[in-house]
């Protein structure tokens, strides 16, 4: 049985969107159709995210450790024939690693993987997302057993404290300290909550863990419940994550069946139950007090802190709220020990962090790296650099609460404190790479637009402050900016940061202030010269074709939706500014970068 082959088909939402569901079905069908010998029939597993979403759908085969990329349903018959029945490798489906300049057989050996260290994502892609047995094979629920049978609640809290684990949702608060506060707090019913409201656009770390390894979250929460004296847990998962909700509900049901949830767990007197609560579609519900109100059946408007949830949380009771990724780390820390965890990462930021690396980057996907690694390593080594050899401009971290880090800061160490010192923050892990085709003014405006729709509207600084800042940015992007606007944005921004009731408002000005700090010249060009250097803001952009560079290939001509470009083959083309609608299609198609911005 040990040499029995297994096929791991990535069925995270990303690959499913790319047709991996059909691929899974195709494997099932093909195996059945061929009527293979029982010995040869492989296990076909639907897994969570394998990591390199750019190359999906991904299929991994063991024990040979072969990873195929961009798999189509039509490839399945060949894969079964050559890699399951026989032991061949299909070269054309292998990943060509640009850095190693070769085709690599297994994802473990990709440059993409080399600097990664998977703790929170350790099981994603390696276990069937609907199998508790797969989870048990990977030391699943061993940490819970160890805790229930050999440790006191205080010992568990001490272990988490010593590990140095800090919240992975963005706040970075020391997890052990939070747990100790809840343990001490007075309340007859304590609660444990998973914040699965992952709302940052471009972030899908939590989604992948919830889809691909739901039991690790449950195990982490059970351990905390034991430590603080809680019996009930709620997993608040955003409404849009249908597959995560489904997989988590199923995990809870199977965990109960096998006695890892419910009463008298593992023969002890520990009782623990969990329930999924679907979010209603509100980014602000990622804020912990808003989240609590949402679970209670109210609108997600935050409450002043203090009191903090560890003291007075859900229905006024002591409550621990932690992020999905934080929970995923807990069982491993218990199993391998605080010292082991503390040996990874940097001095004040222990362990690893999962990032969703997206945007203008060659290797889009999920990466998990030890903290202390530099941005340069993540973007250029793991991420493979910028596509089409374009120029790196900045990397956005921390989502709508963060800021842009420019090129001269690429050797910044990625950890909680360094990023804050730079005017950004780690946030939940979204890392968006942008190139010279992104306008930093419009980018700031984009985040404010998002926040203006997501603000709960309760407090004036956030509601009206964001509205005012957005109105000014709209003006600037449309060519109506006035002298003094930059100073005004900074002034309103500073007040909103200081006076807002909750984290959403307090961090809302960050993208604007960070972009003004690092790319002030772009703002000034928009305001003083009515010009958008990146060529994005339509009213402030004029394209022209550089006659010296143009090779007359005609690609731009064909792509123009308003026929604004004319020219003969092999001769420099001409762009009619009067007809041009600055959609940018031509720039996308030009292979020699001949289309420039005035």
């Amino acid at each position, binding site marked *: 049985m040990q040499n029995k082959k297994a096929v791991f088909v990535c069925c995270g939402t990303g690959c499913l969107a790319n047709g991996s569901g059909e691929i899974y079905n195709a494997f099932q069908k093909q195996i059945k159709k061929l009527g293979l010998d029982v010995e040869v029939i492989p296990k076909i597993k639907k897994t969570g995210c394998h990591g390199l979403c750019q190359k999906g759908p991904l299929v991994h085969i063991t024990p040979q450790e072969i990873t195929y990329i961009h798999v189509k349903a039509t490839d399945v018959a060949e894969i079964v024939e050559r890699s399951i029945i026989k032991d061949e490798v299909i070269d054309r489906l292998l990943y060509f690693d640009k850095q190693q300049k070769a085709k690599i057989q297994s994802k473990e050996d990709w440059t993409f993987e080399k600097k990664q260290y998977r703790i929170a994502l350790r099981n994603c892609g390696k276990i069937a997302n609907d199998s508790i047995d797969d989870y048990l094979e990977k030391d699943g629920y061993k940490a819970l057993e160890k805790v229930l049978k050999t440790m006191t609640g205080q010992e568990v809290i001490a272990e988490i404290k010593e590990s140095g684990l800090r919240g992975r949702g963005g706040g970075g608060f020391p997890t052990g300290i939070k747990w100790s506060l809840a343990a001490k707090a007075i309340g007859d019913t304590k609660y444990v909550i998973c914040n699965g409201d992952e709302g940052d656009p471009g972030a899908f770390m939590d989604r992948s863990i919830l889809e691909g390894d739901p039991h690790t979250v449950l195990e982490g929460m059970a351990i905390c419940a034991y430590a603080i004296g809680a019996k009930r847990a709620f997993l608040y998962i955003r409404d849009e994550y249908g597959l995560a909700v489904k997989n988590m509900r199923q995990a809870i049901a199977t965990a109960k069946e096998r006695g890892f949830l419910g009463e008298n767990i593992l023969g002890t007197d520990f009782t623990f139950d969990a329930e999924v609560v679907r979010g209603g579609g*509100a980014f602000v519900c990622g804020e912990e007090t808003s989240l609590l109100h949402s679970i209670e059946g109210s*609108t997600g408007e935050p*409450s*002043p802190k*203090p009191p903090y949830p560890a003291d007075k949380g859900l229905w006024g009771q002591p409550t621990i709220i932690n992020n999905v990724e934080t929970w995923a780390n807990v069982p491993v820390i218990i199993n391998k020990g605080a010292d082991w965890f503390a040996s990874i990462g940097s001095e004040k930021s222990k362990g690893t962090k999962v990032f969703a690396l997206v945007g203008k980057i060659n290797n889009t996907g999920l990466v998990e790296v030890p903290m202390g690694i530099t941005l340069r390593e993540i973007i250029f080594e793991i991420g493979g650099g910028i596509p089409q050899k374009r120029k790196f401009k900045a990397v956005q971290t921390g989502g709508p609460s963060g800021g842009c880090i420019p090129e001269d800061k690429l050797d910044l160490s990625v950890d909680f404190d360094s990023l804050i010192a730079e005017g950004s923050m780690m946030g939940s892990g979204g890392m968006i790479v942008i190139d010279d085709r992104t306008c930093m003014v419009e980018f700031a405006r984009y985040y404010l637009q998002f926040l*203006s*729709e*997501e*603000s*709960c*509207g*309760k*407090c*004036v*600084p956030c*509601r*009206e*402050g*964001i*509205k*005012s800042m957005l*109105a*000014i940015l709209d003006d600037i992007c449309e060519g109506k900016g*006035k002298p*003094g*606007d930059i100073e*005004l944005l900074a*002034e*309103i921004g*500073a*007040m909103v940061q*200081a*006076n*807002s*009731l909750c984290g959403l408002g307090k961090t809302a000005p960050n993208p604007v202030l960070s972009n003004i700090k690092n790319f002030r010249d772009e703002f000034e060009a928009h305001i003083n010269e009515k010009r958008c250097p990146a060529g994005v803001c339509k009213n402030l952009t004029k394209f022209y074709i550089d006659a010296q560079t143009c090779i007359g290939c005609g690609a731009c001509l064909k792509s123009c939706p308003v026929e604004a470009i004319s020219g003969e083959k092999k001769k420099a083309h001409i762009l009619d500014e009067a007809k041009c609608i600055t959609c940018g299609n031509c720039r996308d198609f030009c292979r020699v970068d001949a289309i420039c911005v005035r």
Partner: protein
Amino acid sequence: MQIFINNKPYEANASEKILDVARRNGIEIPTLCHSEALPGLASCRLCMVEVKENGRTGQVAACTHPVAEGIEVNTESELIAHHRKTLLQLYYLMAPQSKRIKAMLSYYHVPAFDRLPADKDNKCILCGLCTKACSELGTNAISTLNRGTDKKVGTAFDEPAITCIGCGACASICPTEAIEMSEQDGKRTIWEKTFQLLRCSDCGEYFTTPEALAHVRQKLGERAGKIEELQLCEHCKTKKTATKLKDGLKLEEVFDSLAK
């Protein structure tokens, strides 16, 4: 316990917030959404003060931040005053006609702000006092609806609320005169619903609606005696209570007698 405000020591109780101590001692901190009867909204953010606590300095809302032994509060630092002006400029954009906001703009010497257009016809600052009053004192006829800049106060489906009793608690607690309540010919109109008004059994002036009186009676339960005794306007009720106190009755006895 002892706390410090603007470098002076003051006595404080453990259950108090910074604002309670300040107000008790005549220290000025502006507020719009604060009410003694309905505290804790913390939405106007005008009461921000600087606090040094456990060695760290930060800015907090005085109305909801609890006192602790030895904390040092600064109500008029340069930063607090500066942010307050910026915030008041936003209030001006929201509700330029409000008397209270105009007074604050003048008092704090807030410079004119014309970079963005002001909402000339609006008075509501969405503080939430009216909806809280309706929820705790009234019948849940109004609530905040929508989210963010679309947020507004309104009734269910924007229709005259079935449960509205016309008590006017919302209009009286509103800090910016944003709720229209009109009275004419023995009728009161509020939130697009018209009510009859009852006359005070003592002085004969119109004062409340039958629905509001019935609501009070229902809340008092057993202690609501003959309804005529309850049918006194504010003025006459105060007069009656004061008379009884003058006659040497203790306060509980006065209340009991009023309810009989």
